[in-house]
């Protein structure tokens, strides 16, 4: 069965949605279109998973109390 929406356009819209770069109207239309096409839902979920994984797994080195104190000392 052919997809309802153009693949390239779907991917572009998914990206814009997760980047919070859509207007309210575009976002509403996007969510409505997405739910009408299983392939669209699949792309959406893949992108969501990829972004959450990258965000959650990236190394976030800790900030030592010494660094905070140094900054406070220098800036006072």
């Amino acid at each position, binding site marked *: 069965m052919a997809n309802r929406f153009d693949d390239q356009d779907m991917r572009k819209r998914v990206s814009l949605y997760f980047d919070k770069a859509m207007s309210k109207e575009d976002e509403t239309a996007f969510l409505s279109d997405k739910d009408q096409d299983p392939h669209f839902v699949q792309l959406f979920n893949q992108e969501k998973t*990829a972004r959450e994984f990258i965000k959650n797994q990236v190394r976030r080195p800790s900030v030592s109390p010494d660094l905070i104190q140094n900054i406070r000392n220098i800036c006072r």
Partner: protein
Amino acid sequence: MNLLSDTRKKTGEEIFDSELLPHIDALKTFAFHLSYDDDDANDLVQETYMKAHRFIDKYQEGTNAKAWLFKILKNAYINEYRKKSKRPTRVDFEDIVSYHDSDDSRVPGYLDLRQEIFENMMGDEVTIAINALPMDFRTVVLLCDIEGFTYEEISKIIDVPIGTVRSRLFRARNMLKEKLASYATNLGYKDKRGRAKKEEE
């Protein structure tokens, strides 16, 4: 006169504590991924706060403190730390970027990674893959995908047009997924991209 001066100083310190210091963790993460080194990252963060403190009168209370601090840090890195970098000179990707700026939709090869691939990754792969990106691409991924800045905010932080932000992001994400896909291949996953299309044909 003294009273006025004291009031101003106190307000500046309050702003510093309540609006600027809460972003120290995010700044440290950004600095670490720019410099690849914990000590250099600490120096960068410290320098950022020193500059912010020096120019606190330029900051408007209640505006976007995080974006302001990230811009200061990015400039500090560009001005001082990149010169010291022992890493090889980066390849200039601006020609590629300029091409993609014209029309994102013409760029082929958007990559998908299946959910199960992520479930089998340890996490270090993400850090390694991000740090392997050229700096201009690494920066936009860190600012957008890790810190959640909008295109407009990123555009102001790195001083490039919004179209360039978008095209760099598009390319950076594909580069990142490509790197993660090679980890997936090493984990035993086969690259099935293109197979469905061939079967259709």
